[in-house]
């Protein structure tokens, strides 16, 4: 990672906290995930198992909805106010701008996940040492990789418009295919088409990593989505030359 990207990431992260976006996200995330982990549905006290599965399943959906709200501003706002012109006439590349924005969002998600460490401690204590820390760390890794993929999609959505609501909706709409639709369609099909569509879906890879089966297939999958999202965002930044 290079310096300009870090400078941008630092500024973006600071703006998340200054604008209260960060606090709203943290409170909402901890509220939702906490509620479903501890109090409602198949919570810890119902399953009576020393595992964080209910937390991971809740977070799988909570983060899916929160990330577009986090990324929608990143470039759309700069497009709208014209500050993108300031940024792109600095001696830095489009890539560094995008990496910086990507990193800031990912760091905020990381902070949110770190705030759930008390959950682990509590469950480990309640379970009297029966908590498998390997499974827990895999679950966290899965959430982080999934977040990175959706951040990348969200930044792309934000780069093609000057309207934050549009960016949010595009990110959510694109995301729902990966998150749910592909898995659903793939499950209903047999043979190679089914396998391919299943492979494109997020849940297969998330479940795989959560179960501790860290496969190169999964890493390639997440890496490709992150890469593709940022490449498309770069293309849309560079498009200013032909459009307008």
């Amino acid at each position, binding site marked *: 990672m290079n310096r300009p990207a870090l400078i941008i990431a630092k*500024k973006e992260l600071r*703006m998340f906290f200054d604008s209260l976006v960060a606090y709203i996200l943290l409170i909402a995330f901890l509220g939702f995930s906490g509620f479903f982990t501890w109090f409602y549905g198949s919570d810890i006290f119902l399953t009576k198992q020393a595992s964080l599965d209910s937390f991971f399943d809740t977070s799988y959906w909570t983060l899916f909805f929160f990330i577009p709200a986090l990324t929608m501003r990143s470039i759309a706002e700069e497009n709208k106010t014209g500050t993108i012109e*300031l940024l792109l006439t600095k001696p830095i590349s489009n890539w560094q701008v995008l990496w910086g924005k990507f990193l800031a969002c990912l760091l905020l998600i990381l902070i949110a996940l770190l705030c759930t460490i008390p959950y682990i401690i509590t469950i480990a204590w309640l379970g009297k040492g029966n908590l498998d820390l390997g499974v827990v760390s895999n679950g966290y890794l899965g959430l982080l990789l999934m977040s990175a993929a959706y951040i990348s999609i969200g930044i792309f959505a934000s780069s093609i418009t000057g309207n934050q609501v549009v960016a949010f909706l595009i990110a959510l709409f694109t995301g729902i295919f990966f998150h749910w639709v592909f898995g659903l369609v793939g499950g209903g099909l047999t043979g190679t088409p089914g396998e391919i569509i299943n492979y494109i879906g997020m849940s297969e890879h998330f479940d795989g990593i959560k179960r501790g089966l860290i496969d190169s297939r999964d890493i390639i999958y997440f890496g490709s989505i992150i890469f593709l999202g940022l490449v498309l965002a770069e293309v849309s930044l560079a498009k200013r030359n032909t459009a*307008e």
Partner: protein
Amino acid sequence: MRFKKEQSPFMEVVIKNLTKRYKGFKAVDNISFRINQGEVLGFLGPNGAGKSTTMKVITTYITPSEGDVEVGGYSVRTHPEEVKKLIGYLPENNPLYLDMPVMDYLEFSARLQGVPKDKVNQRVREMLKVCGLAGEKHKLIAELSKGYRQRVGLAHAMIHDPQVLILDEPTSGLDPNQIIEIRKLIKDIGKQKTVILSTHILPEVEATCDRILIINKGKIVADGTPETLRKQAKGREVINVKIEDGSTEDVRNALKALPSVLDVIVIHGKEHSFEVQGDKFAAPKRDIFKMCVDKGWTLTEMVPFETSLEDIFHDLTIN
């Protein structure tokens, strides 16, 4: 990303056969010019003439369709990063991060421009002083008035002590006192740096620029110092005269009869005063003086009015 004071003697900006096309129409049509170090160039033209487009190409924000731009010997096509290091840019409408405090914003800009960490504070302090922002440094940019925001934009453009400054309408939205201050600032900077500024305020170019370039419909229609442009202007000369001892009617008719005089207007509210529009190349002033001597009238006032840049601008850009 090094911060270096490059004192190249060739810190000039060269525009070579630049064309920029947007979806079929040519915003800039095959223009070429050169700006030397230490020169302040005023870029004039009606809205949509291609001023901003040209500036955006120089700053590498958009790439040329044809032709090239070189800044300090670096081409915007092949070495955009080098070009960007040499340039300080104030875009049109002065976009800013409104939710950042002034100081943080300037620090952020300095860091991105590659100012070394230990020099950032010093540069920020210097810019706050130069641009008169010391009292507002902890305020959010959103809380500032338009004039102060413009200063923040200028401070941002100069934070890395660039050799070339590109200012797109630097004084728009400022009050007259602020305009005078900013103009002075630009003039001072222009002594050592290369400055390109665009405007549609004509007195502004006269006050700040060494050279004027008028652009219309993507083409250069005039290029020169304010004086040479005036000389090129159409041959009308306006003279205010006051001639006593004759009746208004007689004087007016006599003036009108002169071959070098094209039109005479009686100035109301001011006795014996006339505005004479003469043919510049036929020496109307001499004719008027001689006429007064012949008729025995007394010429008490003769004030030549220079052809204003407004007229030149108007002639060149209205077809």
